[in-house]
């Protein structure tokens, strides 16, 4: 595992939607991580393989929700069980 932080290692559920899901080729996966915040988790995911690197090539285009609440990339991951990555939303 590539270290993204100094927190304890936990397993979290990571979800992907829209073009992030397509680039990664899966809608969800379980990730063991010690990332302290969302940016550190993204750094870890980008280093996994080409698909993840492509999905996170432009971090400015990525939005995140922690346990189903919108958050920002600097949000801490302590206690979080589900992280979702997706492009800006287009409802309505």
């Amino acid at each position, binding site marked *: 595992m590539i270290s993204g932080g100094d927190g304890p290692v936990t397993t979290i559920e990571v979800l992907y939607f829209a073009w992030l899901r397509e680039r990664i080729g899966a809608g969800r996966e379980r990730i063991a991580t010690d990332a302290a915040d969302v940016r550190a988790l993204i750094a870890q995911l980008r280093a996994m393989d080409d698909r993840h690197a492509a999905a996170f090539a432009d971090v400015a285009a990525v939005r995140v*929700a922690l346990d*189903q609440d*919108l958050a920002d990339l600097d949000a801490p991951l302590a206690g979080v069980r589900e992280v979702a990555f*997706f*492009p*800006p*939303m*287009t*409802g*309505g």
Partner: protein
Amino acid sequence: MGVRVQAEAFDFGAEAAAFGRGLPDVGAIVTFSGIVREDGGTLSEMVIEHYPGMTERALGAIRDEAMARFGLADALVIHRFGPMRPGDQIMMVATAARHRADAFAAAEFLMDYLKSRAPFWKKETRPEGASWVAAKDADEAALGRW
């Protein structure tokens, strides 16, 4: 009346009629329905993806905020997901208030927020292929007026 997230089509007229029934001291009901545009015949299909669980939570929170902010008697949000064709209804909102200003404003508030704060993503199929709809800066800017 709450929020509903569903794949099935809904009957706009029946929903609007049911929404207005039996509401005390209501002088205004506003309804809005969003429809898949054909864009000059170039769009053949739209598929809407969503985040089950978060979608209901986000829509519920947006509805609660509208109820409180505009003193509504009731509010309804229905939003579909899955494949749709031009002319299909994607979603609707209905708001009920004592006066029309609050009912209109609440409907606009609901639309502005569910465009960019509810986890839906649209993918359009055209002759040249399928592509995800990009969010518009104007949609984000629209939140600034509230």
